[in-house]
Structure formats: C-alpha cells, structure tokens
C-alpha cells in the first residue's frame, strides 16, 4: 500500500495530468504591492498549539531531551551546567529562524518583480496545492522539494504565500550566513541555519533535532528541507541524506504525533540560472572574478530569458502507511523517549528506503521540456563526431521519435501538443542559444574556439558547454535509466542468456548506485525495465534468453549511448588508479590528479566523452570503488587511498569488456548489438 502511495504515478492510466496554472499571469495583470499586502490567513494544523518563534526557543531549551544531553555533556567534560546551557542557547540563537510576515511580504513584492523579468511563466499543479491544503490541516507536514537552484526555497515560500498556505520553516546550510544581510533576510522569511557538518557534537545535534521536532509536533509550520542535502550541479538527483528525514519521522515512531505527511515537490527549470556556474564548478575552473564586468554579467543574467518553471506538488506520503508492517514502534517502549538513541537497524533501513522512494517520486514528477530531449540527441550526435552537426529536420525527426519513446517510458514530458514539432524544436533551441549554434540548417553544440590560448583552455571552454548540456540531458536520465542499464547489460554480457544478462545488470546497478537513484531491492527493478523494453517492443524475452528485436535496435543504441559516458568515466577512473596512483595519493589530491590524467588523454584523442571531466562523476566512481572495497582509505594518513590494482583492473574490464582508452570511432561499439539482433530475432 505504501509503495502504491509513492508509485501511483507510475501507472500510465493514473498519469498525472493535473492542470498547471501559471501564477505569473495574475502578477502581470494586477498590482504587486496590493498582492504583497493582501490579507494572508492560511489554514493551519488542527492540533496546532499557537506559539511564537520566541516561545519555540524556550520550549526547546526546556525540553527533556536537551536537559538530558546537557547533563550528559557536563558529566563527560566536567563543564558546569550553566556553561553548557549557555552554549545550547547560543547554538539555538545561531540556528533559529525569525519568521516575520513583513519580511515575507517584502519578498513577495520583490520576487514578483524579479520573477516576471526572468521567467515566462511559473506553472504550479493546482490539484497538488489542494491536496497540500487538505493535508496541512490533518497532520504535520514536511515539504521535500528537489534542489537545483538557489532559487528553490525562495520560490517555494513565494508559492505557498501566493496560495495562502502556511509558510514553511526551511533548513538551510550555514554558507548563506556568510552573506550577513541576506542571511538575516532569509532568517526572517523562515530559514533556519544548520552547520554543514557537526559529526560528533552531541549538543549541537540535540538542539537541532529538538528544534525541528518541536516545530513539527506543535504544528508551528510545515518543515521544509532538501532531501538531497545540496544543490545538484548535474541535474541528476543526489543520493538522499537521511539525518533530517530521520528527525522528522522520529515523532511518529515515538507516538508523539499520529502521522506525518511528506510532500515531495519537483521543481524543474527550463533554463537553470546557475547553468554555466555549475559546469565551471564541476570542471574546477575558477569562477570569473567579481569585477565591474562581473557586475555587468550579473545584470545580463537578469536581462535574459529563462523560460518557464514547473512546480509539481506530489501526492502526500503518510509516514504511518509507509511504516506499516516495517517498523515495530514497540522498540521505544522500554527506554524513556527523551534519551537519544541511535536508530535501530530496521529504522535505519526504513528511513533509507523511504528517502529513495521520495527522491524517485521527485524525479518522476519532474516536468521535462523538449529541450531536455534535444540536449540528449545533440550530445550523442556531437560524440559521434559529425563535425558539421545535424540537419535541423533530422533533429526534429529524432526528437519526435524520442518524445514518443520517453512517453512510453512514463516521462512527464511537457511538449506543446498543438504546435508543429519543428516549431517546438526551434523555439527550444533559441531559448538555449548560448549552448547551440545553428548555421546552414544544421545544428551543433556551440563549441567555438573562442579566445582560448592553449589547447587545454580550449578543451575546458568546450567542456563548459558540454557539461551544461549534459545537465539538461540528465534531467531525463531517470526516465531511461533502468532500461538503459538493461541495454548496457545486454551489451556487456558475454551471452544473451537471461542469467548472464541479469548478472551483468546487477553488476552495473551495483556499480552505479552512487551515481543514480536506484532504490534498494534489485529484482523489481529488473522486472520493471524488462517490462518497459518488452512493452515497447524493443526486447523479446524467451524462456532462457533476452533478445533485441529489429525494431528495438534504434532504442537500444540510444539507451546504451545514454549510459556510455558514465561507463567510460568509471573506466577511466579505474585506469587512472591502476596507472598513476602513487602510494601517497590522498583523497584530497584525487580529483586534481584524475582531472590532469583525463585532460591528457582527451587532448590525445584517446577518450570520447569530454563529460568524464565532471568532478561529480569522478567523486561518485571513487565512492563506488571505496564501497566495493577496490580502494581503501587508510586511517590517520589524511585519507590516503590504497588501491587494490587487481580488483580495480577487473572492475574496469567488467564495465566495458573493451578497453576504455582507444581511438575507435563512435558507432563501432554498437556492432555487437546489431550482430546480436540479427541472431536473435
């Protein structure tokens, strides 16, 4: 039942076709000032104990949990109780929000102005808003938006204000606090600030968790935080962080609330404001210095067209239903509930599974724009080495094909129905004119030589464009991921025996579980992807074998190329670790070193995918290798990495069944598939 709640969207018959409403439309037609000053009277939680931000603080400081930890800290460190209490109080002071309606009104006014200049529309699913309104009254609510931009949380508060819904309190990273004035403004609009890391600091953890729980239990406001922990620079969903989710579920486990509703929210930007910023960050290229020209550029940001934003408020997920039959709440019966306890094994795995499900729900509700498909096609085309790009009408034809395919795979694609495809394509291209170049009816990525002096600089400036593009392709990755893993499994498996394919699939799945959101529980995934491919006629599954049909050839080529950059990325990291990793390589040095290695090979033309320069991919592959035990961290030596060369080598082989570094041209790698399909149809 629980899974149904999250996955109901999967069912094509129940496909979310909620109507979207453009909230900017009204803003363009009526006074922003009146809007900012209008009467704001949201519905509240029925069990609400009305309290001010100030009383919240004293509730936290007087809580049993905090008292217990304060005394524990005193016992352990020998400090005076007053002293520790003082510290707790200042931690809370540093953390707490000071939600003020006046500040919210100020933001409502200014953001209206900003949004109207930046975006064509901000579309929100109204049914989601209605569901949210309902659920806010019944249970404490936790809002879980996806995180792709700094904009996200201002946008969320703006939307809730617009719809007269309770304003959330938002967990924000301490880094905002660096900007003194802005930080305080955000604080007054409902943000509370948490340190990025506070590992063993019991007191900090106690203050923090009690603060969040108090707000949640009292129904003070919906609690909002980002499951992914930070902004995704790649537009791929990040592996969820469990800390806060654990905290908000805890009151339910301990019976302090009847239920908690988790509402996944998917925010998709047609054009991300931080587009090239992210790409530079991933490449380790320093940001352009703050200067007058920088300022002018910042102004340029404001004058550009960023298309539209789609916000989808997902189906609220009841923690109670999720936990039914999975968590035995009796485990809290024998110890006073205020004594902090490490989550038990079953709770940990439950929270972990729930987090994955919620991130998956975010992914599935993410509205995709046609450009996402175009970016995928253009990237594949670019790699295939056609120097002159692809003809516009061919691109359109491919886009239409991909549109249909993605819909079959359940993508939430927002493709204007009554516009000719060619127009859809050209308008998408023109919105992203910084990334593509159209000349003589042919389209390609804008990889101009520019003013680069050295070949390395040229490579990096091209990489900025490619990574920006890849981030758009990544938006659609979750749609194709499972079939793509299967396609790659068929590709790399030594035969078409079901078992072989399954082994290969499991291997890839395991290998990439730091890279993509792959819910725990393998077999159902395999089943799903089978189902997808089989239903679209790309595969035929017999008693023993998995066969590629003739029709499925094109699909399979597309799918494998989707995953190829990642395969190659992991391979090249393996190669690096075998060839160049010295005894003294530390974790800190890893990224610069592997980057240098990759640049060298790219310049020599021995690697096909410029994308592998992404530090995100490099980090993930190291994390995977560490998880699999192919690399170990030696304690006490500043994280020196110890490489198990034999294992890394064999992983590299299994990943490709072919050398990673080679000069072969593009489609050659698909010959295998075509031979297979000839064999098996």
């Amino acid at each position, binding site marked *: 039942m629980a899974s149904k709640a999250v996955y109901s969207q999967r069912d094509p018959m129940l496909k979310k076709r909620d109507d979207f409403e453009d909230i900017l439309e009204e803003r363009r037609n009526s006074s922003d000032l009146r809007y900012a000053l209008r009467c704001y009277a949201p519905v509240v939680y029925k069990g609400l104990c009305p309290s001010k931000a100030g009383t919240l603080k004293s509730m936290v400081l007087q809580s049993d949990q905090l008292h217990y930890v304060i005394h524990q800290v005193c016992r352990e460190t020998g400090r005076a109780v007053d002293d520790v209490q003082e510290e707790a109080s200042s931690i809370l002071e540093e953390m707490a929000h000071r939600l003020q309606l006046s500040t919210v009104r100020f933001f409502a006014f200014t953001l209206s102005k900003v949004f109207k200049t930046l975006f064509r529309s901000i579309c929100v699913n109204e049914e989601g808003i209605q569901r949210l309104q309902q659920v806010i009254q019944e249970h404490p609510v936790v809002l879980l938006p996806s995180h792709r931009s700094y904009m996200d949380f201002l946008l969320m508060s703006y939307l809730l204000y617009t719809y007269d819904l309770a304003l959330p309190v938002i967990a924000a990273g301490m880094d905002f606090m660096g900007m003194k004035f802005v930080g305080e403004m955000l604080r007054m609009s409902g943000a509370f600030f948490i340190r990025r890391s506070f590992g063993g600091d019991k007191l900090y953890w106690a203050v923090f968790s009690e603060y969040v729980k108090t707000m949640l239990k009292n129904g003070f406001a919906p609690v909002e935080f980002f499951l992914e922990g930070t902004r995704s620079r790649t537009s791929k969903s990040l592996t969820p962080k469990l800390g806060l989710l654990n905290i908000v579920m805890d009151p339910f486990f301990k*019976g*302090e609330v*009847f*239920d908690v509703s988790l509402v996944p929210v998917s925010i998709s930007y047609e054009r991300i404001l931080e587009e090239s910023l992210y790409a530079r960050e991933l490449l380790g290229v320093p940001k352009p210095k703050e200067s007058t020209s920088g300022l002018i550029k910042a102004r340029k940001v404001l004058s550009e067209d960023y298309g539209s934003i789609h916000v989808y408020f997902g189906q609220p997920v009841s923690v109670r239903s999720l936990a039914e039959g999975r968590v*035995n*709440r*009796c485990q809290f019966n024998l110890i*006073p509930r205020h004594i902090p306890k490490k989550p038990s094994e079953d709770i940990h795995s439950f929270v972990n599974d729930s987090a994955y499900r919620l991130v998956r729900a975010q992914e599935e509700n993410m509205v995709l724009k046609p450009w996402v498909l175009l970016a995928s096609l253009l990237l594949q085309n670019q790699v295939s080495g056609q120097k002159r790009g692809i003809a516009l009408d061919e691109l359109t034809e491919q886009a239409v094909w991909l549109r249909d395919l993605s819909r079959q795979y359940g993508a939430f694609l927002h493709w204007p129905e009554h516009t000719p495809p060619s127009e859809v394509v050209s308008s998408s291209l023109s919105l992203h004119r910084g990334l593509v170049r159209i000349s003589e009816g042919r389209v390609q990525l804008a990889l101009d030589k520019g003013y680069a002096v050295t070949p390395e600089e040229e490579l990096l400036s091209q990489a900025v464009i490619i990574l920006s593009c890849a981030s758009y392709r990544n938006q659609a990755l979750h749609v194709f991921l499972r079939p793509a893993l299967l396609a790659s499994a068929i590709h790399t498996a030594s035969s078409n025996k079901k078992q072989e394919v399954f082994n290969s699939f499991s291997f890839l799945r395991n290998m990439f579980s730091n890279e993509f959101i792959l819910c725990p529980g393998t077999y159902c995934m395999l089943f799903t992807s089978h189902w997808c491919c089989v239903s679209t006629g790309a595969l035929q599954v017999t008693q023993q074998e998995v066969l590629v049909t003739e029709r499925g050839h094109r699909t399979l080529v597309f799918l494998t190329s989707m995953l190829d950059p990642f395969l190659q990325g992991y391979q090249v990291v393996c190669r690096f670790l075998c060839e160049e990793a010295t005894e003294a390589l530390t974790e800190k040095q890893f990224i610069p070193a592997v980057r240098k290695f990759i640049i060298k090979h790219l310049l020599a033309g021995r690697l096909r995918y410029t994308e592998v320069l992404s530090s995100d991919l490099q980090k993930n592959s190291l994390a995977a290798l560490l998880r699999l035990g192919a690399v170990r961290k030696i304690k006490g030596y500043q994280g020196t990495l110890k490489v198990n060369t034999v294992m890394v080598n064999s992983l590299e082989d299994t990943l490709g069944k072919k050398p990673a570094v080679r000069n072969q041209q593009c489609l050659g790698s698909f010959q295998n598939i075509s031979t297979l399909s000839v064999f098996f149809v």
Partner: protein
Amino acid sequence: MLYISTKYQIIRKDFPFYLGKTAHGGLWVQIKNLPGHLPKESPSHVQEIMKWNGWGYSDSRFLFNKKGQAEFTGKRYRLSGMIIPGLKDWFECTFGASLQHKTPPLLNSSAVQPPTLNEAFVEELKSTGIPFSQDAEDRVFRAHGHCLHEIFALREGKFGRVPDMVVWPNCHNDVVKIVELASKHNVCLIPYGGGTSVSSALECPPEETRSIVSLDTSQMNRILWVDEKNLTAHVEAGIVGQDLERLLNESGYCTGHEPDSMEFSSLGGWVATRASGMKKNIYGNIEDLVVHIKMVTPQGVIEKSCQGPRMSTGPDIHHFIMGSEGTLGVVTEVTMKIRPMPEYQKYGSVVFPNFEQGVACLREVARQRCAPASIRLMDNEQFKFGHALKPQVSSIFTSFLDGLKKFYITKFKGFDPNRLCVATLLFEGDREKVLQHEKQVYDIAAKFGGLAAGEDNGQRGYMLTFVIAYLRDLGMDYYVIGESFETSVPWDRVLDICRNVKARIVRECKERGVQFPPLSTCRVTQTYDAGACVYFYFAFNYRGLSDPVQCQNLHAAREEILANGGSLSHHHGVGKLRKEWMRETVSNVGMGMLKSVKDYVDPNNIFGNRNLL
C-alpha cells in the same frame, strides 16, 4: 424498613441500594427492595430478571418514547423513569443516526444445537445431587460475555458452540466433586461467574469436541465468616459485587472493591481476571485485597496454610491464580480484607480548559500521592456525552443556574466548549479529612487552570459508567454499535496514546467505509505512581456496511495501543480476544512459564476455555 426522610440527602441512588449522608455528615445505607437476585430453589431463573441478549436487568432499558424523547425504564437506577431530553439530538448529531431506521433484535432461541452429553459423567453427577440443566436457554445464557460481537450475534439469533450443560455447585465440596468427575470422564469445564467478561473468555472453543459443562458459581454466594479483629471476611467466590457489599454493609463494613460491573460480576471472576475497582486508591485492586484463596484444580485444591499479611515464600502462588482466567481451576473461597464503612462521601468535579491540562493535573495529583478514592478525567467528547444524559430539570431555577454556570465557564473564563474536559472525583473517609483532602486536590487543580464544577457533575460522570452498557443496547436498536477497551500506560505516554488511538479508530472507520465519523472518546480512569489506566469508548453508525462487527476493528486499535507503549490490558484480561499478543507481551520465556504451570496443574485441559495461552 423503608425510611426516607428529607433530613437525609441521597448521594448514591444508582445502586440497588441507597447510600446517603445525614445532615451531620453521617452515612447511612438503605437496601432497596430487590427481587431475590438468585433464588436458591431454582438456580436457572436468573435469566428471568436479566436480559439474555443485552446488558443488565430486563426491566431497565433506554428507549425513545412516542414523542421521540429518550427515557430510561424501570426503578432500579437514579436515572430510572426519567426523561433525558438531550439524548436524541446528541444521538442523531453524533452518529448521523435516525430514529426511522430501526434494527430490532431477532428473537429466536430455537437455533441452539442439541447438547453433546457425556452420559457417564451425567449419571455420576446425578448421584451427587448437584443441580444441573441441559435447557437451551440456560446454556445460551452462559455461552457469552459482553463483547460487541457476542451481543451482536445474539441479537441476530446466531449461536455458535454453546455449553452442553450447566451445573450449579452449592459449596466448595460440590466443586471438588464436579472437578473430579470431569477429570475422570474427560469433560471440559468452563467456570462461569457473573458473565460480564469482555474478552471472549466465555466463548466455547469451537474446536472442542468433548462435552462442555458450564460451572455456574452463582449459588456459592455466602459470607462464611467475618473476622473483625483482623478485618477480614471469608466469602464464597460466586457472590456478586453488589450482594457482597450489601451484606457487609449490614454489619458496618465494606470491601471497597467497586468495578464498574459490580452489579453483576462475581468475586471469583475478579480474582480470575485481576480486576480493578473504581476506589482502588483507598482500598487497592483485587491483588491488594485478597488475603487467602482456595482454588479447586484437576490436581487438587491449592491454598496457602496461613493468613499472614505478607510472606517471603518464593513466588506468590496467588499470582498463578489471579489472572488465570479459568484455565487452571475454579476459585471457590476467598478471604478478603474489609474496612469499616466510610463516615462520609463526597462527589466533586473540575473543569479544565483542555485535556492536556487535565492530564497534567492528574499526574501532579499522583505525584503528590493525594488521589481521592476515585479520580477520572473525561475528554471533551465524553463530557458532551455526559451532558446529553442530563435528565429533564424540574425547575426553571435549576436550568437558569445551569445556563449561568455555562456562561461563566465558556464566556467569562474563556473555555472553549469544544476543548474543555472534566474530571470527576469521589472522596471518602472521615468528614474532616475528606474536606481537607478535597481542598488539597482543588488547589492542585487550580494550578492547572481547573475550576471546581460541582458535585452534581461528578455524580453524573459516575452514573455514566453504570448506564453506558444499557445505552449500547439502545444504539443497537438504531444501527449504532459500540465497544470499549482499556489499557495502562506510563504517564509520559498518556496524551500521545489517547490522541493516537482515537485518531486510529477514526481512520480505520473511514477506510472501512463507515459513512459518518465515529464517536471516539477516552478517559483516564485510574492513576498510579508510574502511570495511568485509560479507557476508550467508540461507536459508529453501521448502516450500509455488510460486516459491521469487523469494521469496529479492535485489532487495529490494540495494535496502536501496543505501539504507543500501552499494555495489553489493565483489568479486562486477555481471554481469547487478546491472546494473540500474549507472547510479545510476556516474552517467550514468560509464555513457557505459564504453559508449564498449566501443563502441571491441568495436563488434560479439563479447564479448556483456552483463554490466555
């Protein structure tokens, strides 16, 4: 004998005896002219004065009269013969029920299966001269307790497995003979006391193939001796609460054990289920009250050799007996503590702005160990329910006063009528001490925003417990079914468990297609040093549902209780209704211990009601 004077104020009329106080604070008791509860010569006649398919006395029931007003019939209770004007509206608004839609009980007692008799056993029993019966009515009457599903089935004319015969032993030695014969002939015995079980304890196991004999202890109802030096009384276990209290009162004593079912439940039943009384704060629960127990088992009679007030002689064997729920043998005689009757009794009530404050107050009262004889906290829904049961007021002045009180509380003090709740109190003892005690409790209550709300409200609160079971029968006439259950829980969990269990009931009803939101209400009925006893009621309108009894979903409610740190039962017992949770409640080893006791005491499962384990 009847002596009523205006000098005396009747303070308790809801029992079949009057308890009152004189103008000087003295106490008097007067026994009503009851029909002989259990005439010796024809033991089976109990069903003539008791309903066979509902609660309590046949002459006492709620009904809606021709004017559509609710009234309570009979003469036995304070409420008897009165019109209750508020009940109809409350009933219709709370349940969305209509007086147009009636579900009268089907009256056929003919569908009872013929008895499976063990001829040899019957022959030998005859020779002992102990009375017995194979009459269908006698058998059906003893085949059930008062769980909703049991009564519902009876009203529908459905009978499952019922006992094959009923025996009425007259004394301990009769029981010894019966148990010997049952062991000899391998007959299943099910002890029957007052029949007020709410744990399916009296249901005959359908898989039982042996002849089932219901052992009705009702004829063993004498007080054998009273020891005024030690303040103990030796009593036969079949005596029902009201008789025990009445007889002791005649000589100026009482036990002070008053479970809500005391009109009908028996001493043996209290021992077998670990019962709890309303006034346990002064007198203690059953385990504090018993000094000595005699029980007949298939292995012989178990009892202690002396009546020392406390012993260090290994695990207390009384604790194998108390709570054994008829699985080990029949309790035949009990020595109980008695107390001189209290000089003075006073009801009281306190209104709190909300349930949270009320619980905090009860917690503080428990902390200071100054709980009155009884202190109970009703939630808002139950407060309203109690209010609906107010009988018609005779004078305009009273209704004016009521209006004034209401105005004072809601308008002047700012209490939200949809959140306020009320605690009912009962003080007992020396007049001086009671008044002192009363002040102490009201002072504590004031710290939690409580306002004293008069004796009348308190008294009505206690009346509710005695008539609630009658009200359930009324509901069943109009498509409304209800049930109650209880638990005990540590103090820090009280609020959470109340909220969550009530919410769970509402949610389950919704999910099962119940059209109108159910009445889901609770009260804290007992306080202890480390926790409290919480009692839940719920009821709903089942029109349009195919299987209403399933929809009550007690299972989910109990799961919720356990998940919130509540116990499996505070005083109702486990029976068969809750035995699926026994293992997790007492652990594997605990279960093994209990099993091994059963295996030793009753290896052939003569006491085969299959409760508990």
